[in-house]
């Protein structure tokens, strides 16, 4: 598989043709997409036009961007001007945004070629892509297994070689968990590092866009391009993009890596075994492993499943059939609302809207939403204490390797547990990334998760690069 940095340097120095690169990726899509279903939409024609333009620019001596000619897939919850953006929901099927998300604008400006919109759990609610209204995505390593979710399409697209990189969004683990299950690198940056403008909101205080790539260097390169302050997003951190590629060779000598001793139970033995070898590898590279406790971690899943649905119930209220998206006509306004939302939303989305509406209702707010906000402060405090004695923390990304289709669909709680290790970072707003680290049961990929404090991306990438060298 061609690396993003190799394509970009080859295209910009003229040794590679962007058009040829795009054709190679489209050819792989032709062969395998029908069984994988990574995409809701492959924008082949536009990709060819964009590639030809990059080649012409190179030929005429124009300066091209850091991602010149790199085919990138974009999760179908990021707005692309004039190109259908569905969130894998029937309610938005056919909707073409009149504007580009900031990340899409940045990709285009850097010369990247957007090759398609990838499948997801409807409105990013799920951990397997089984909640997509348009059918699930298959794991390229074993098509009887899920790719993870909600950004399963983006993870699968990179793992299958359909794109050199992709963008996903991570609200409770939706980048890191599918990255682990598909054997690719996935990064959730610090909240506010990447603009959310144009990302269709699921839970606004938790959502963050990040890259999927084949390796750590590609992830650092892509993250440098898409991050940075955006005046269109009030929660965007007013700081320039962090320098990440520059630290990849720094090693981890002298770094302190946290091992969480009160980690929630229920993790597969193979996954824990891979985590231990990761600690060993870092120790051999000169890092110190420090035991830490995160006592509030046991409440995080519960708190998350109040906060995220509460925000979602508000964010998804706009899909009412009045202005855009699909409408089911009915005799009066309230019946039209009900019929539209009944037909337009899938079961999991409805479940979360109900849950969130309830959690915010008068008389229940304090007991549910209010309490969840307290847990959010507690876990932040836990992390703050821990980061006094460590630079980064290492945990499993997912408690298990990729599971088989249908194995958790009847039990929402079992599905929610997929995110038990990833959710705490979202609640704290911290960065975390999943790095492939060998295989587990059924020879499926295992990822380990590197956590860091707010704006600790450099430390996180140093550790991730070291793990990659050791794997």
């Amino acid at each position, binding site marked *: 598989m061609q690396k993003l940095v190799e394509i970009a340097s080859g295209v910009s120095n003229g040794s590679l043709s962007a058009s040829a690169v795009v054709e190679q990726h489209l050819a792989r899509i032709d062969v395998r997409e029908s069984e994988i279903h990574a995409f809701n939409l492959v924008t082949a024609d536009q990709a060819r036009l964009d590639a030809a333009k990059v080649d012409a620019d190179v030929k005429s001596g124009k300066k091209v961007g850091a991602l010149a000619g790199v085919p990138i897939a974009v999760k179908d919850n990021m707005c692309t001007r004039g190109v259908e953006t569905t969130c894998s929901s029937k309610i*938005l099927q056919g909707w073409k*945004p009149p504007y580009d998300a900031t990340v899409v604008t940045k990709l285009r400006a850097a010369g990247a070629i957007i090759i398609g919109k990838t499948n997801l759990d409807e409105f990013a609610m799920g951990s397997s892509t089984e909640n997509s209204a348009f059918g699930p995505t298959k794991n390229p390593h074993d098509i009887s297994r899920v790719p993870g979710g909600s950004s399963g399409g983006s993870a699968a697209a990179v793992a299958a070689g359909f794109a050199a990189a992709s963008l996903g969004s991570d609200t409770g683990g939706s980048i890191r968990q599918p990255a682990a299950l598909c054997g690719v690198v996935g990064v959730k940056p610090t909240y506010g590092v990447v603009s959310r*403008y144009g990302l269709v909101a699921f839970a606004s205080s938790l959502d963050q866009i990040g890259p999927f790539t084949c390796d750590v260097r590609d992830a650092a390169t892509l993250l440098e391009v898409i991050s940075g302050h955006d*005046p269109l*997003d009030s929660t965007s951190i007013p700081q320039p993009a962090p320098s990440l590629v520059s630290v990849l060779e720094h090693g981890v000598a002298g770094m302190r890596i946290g091992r969480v001793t009160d980690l929630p139970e229920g993790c597969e033995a193979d996954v824990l075994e891979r985590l231990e070898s990761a600690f060993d590898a870092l120790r051999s590279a000169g890092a110190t492993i420090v035991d830490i406790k995160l006592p509030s971690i046991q409440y995080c899943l519960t708190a998350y499943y109040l906060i995220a649905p509460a925000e979602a119930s508000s964010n998804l209220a706009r899909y*009412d059939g009045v202005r855009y998206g699909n409408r089911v006509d009915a005799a009066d306004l309230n019946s039209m*609302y009900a019929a539209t939302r009944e037909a337009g939303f899938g079961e999991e989305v409805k479940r979360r809207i109900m849950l969130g509406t309830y959690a915010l209702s008068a008389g229940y707010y304090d007991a549910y*939403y209010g309490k969840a906000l307290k847990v959010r402060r507690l876990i932040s405090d836990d992390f703050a204490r821990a980061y006094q004695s460590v630079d980064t923390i290492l945990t499993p990304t997912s408690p298990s390797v990729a599971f088989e289709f249908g194995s958790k669909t009847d039990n929402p709680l079992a599905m929610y547990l997929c995110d038990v290790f990833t959710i705490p970072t979202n609640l704290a707003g911290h960065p975390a990334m999943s790095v492939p680290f060998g295989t587990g049961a059924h020879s499926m990929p295992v990822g380990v998760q590197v956590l860091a404090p707010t704006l600790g991306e450099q430390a996180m990438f140093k550790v991730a690069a070291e793990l990659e060298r050791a794997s």
Partner: protein
Amino acid sequence: MSDVAALPNGWQLIVGLEVHVELATKTKMFSASANRFGDEPNTNIDPVTLGLPGALPVLNQHAIELAMRIGLALNCKVQPCTFHRKNYFYPDLPKAYQITQYDNPLNVDGHLMLPGEVRIGIERAHLEEDTGKSTHFGGSSGRIHGSDYSLIDFNRAGVPLVEIVSRPDIRTSEQARQYVAELRSILLAVGASDAKMEEGSMRCDVNVSVHKPGTPFGTRCEIKNVNSIRSVGRAIDYESRRQVDLIESGGTIRQETRHWDDSTGRTETLRTKEDADDYRYFLEPDLVPLIPDPEWIEAVRAALPILPAARRLALAELCGVDKDGESALVVVERGQDDYVGAVISAGGDPRRAVIYVQQAFAEQGATPKVPAKDLAALTILERDAKVTSTQAKTLLTDLIEAGGGDVLAMAAKRGFETLDTSAVEEMVDAAIAAEPGAWQKYCNGEDKALGALVGAVMKSSKGKADGKVITALLQSKKNS
């Protein structure tokens, strides 16, 4: 205006007002779309205004500044604040939530003074966004239920609003009218809003309850759709009588929202508390807390203009009129108080200056075309009885039409040559001789007889003698 009598049987009226004003910003509360009234429907829109998926709000700095001006002008404390989402479904609310301020508003704890040193507390003045405007077609009610179809104009959606919430300190409908009028003149003075009730850039919700002094406040009803200062008074008078009548006939007041119908002069139930929405307020995650820099607050405070109440007081002291009287109110409202000051500085008679401007300068705006020195000259001419007050009015009209000029020349052109007192005295003596009966009655203390004598002098002088001078001469002759 007929003031409705106080409520019967010792009932006391309690009123609080919630006034929404659209801010005079160039762009909307959270986006770069134009904030302009009267444009083609759905032209001032963008992804943020329409609440398109993925769009995010960004605070308008100018809106914050205008809201701070309002708060400071109302003696509020300006404080760090947050934004919340108020969730409800309605077609003209594009995101299905309104971004507003909830438990931490920008401005709190202010007050506004009414004539007679009546202090009305201001609980808060917070920022929020307006909704789109729905128009319902077909059906009888003009409301969405029962209509054939509805059209929505999103030009108004996202327009910045400040909601000014008074404490329930208002005790009469007259005070309520004065409150709205005073608030409006403050908003205009600080340039925060054009405050046009007829265009909806200033809208009042009126909370009305009644109680007997010494007992707790009664259950209140909120009245919506009150679109003029006059309606504020009428709605309160109607609603308070309705409540008293209902209680006295054994009923109880339900907490509800009522609709004012200006054509029938009545309020009617819009919705009761039971079917009120649960707005599920929560902190708006797309915005960060707004923490105005203390230096910014002080700069805004320092740049505030002198407020209407202070200007009325200054004008009243300068001209010797009542600070709560019509002249001071009208002249300051039109912003002509500086002009009156200039007329006085040019040697004009203070009292005449303010009254001339009040009565004749309604169309002139804050900077009348007539040079201050010309108007000053006219007031002196009248004060010194060189022209009669009737002639002075004519000359004032001439002066306004000509946009200024030499008043003496204008008087001469009109033939208003001045009569000296000796000439008038001769005519007075002639009139006494010609009307001995009237003179006798006048000397016996019948003041009614004065008219005939003055009239006779006026007639012989062909209107050129000053009535005041004639009266003074008659008076002195009677006393001598």
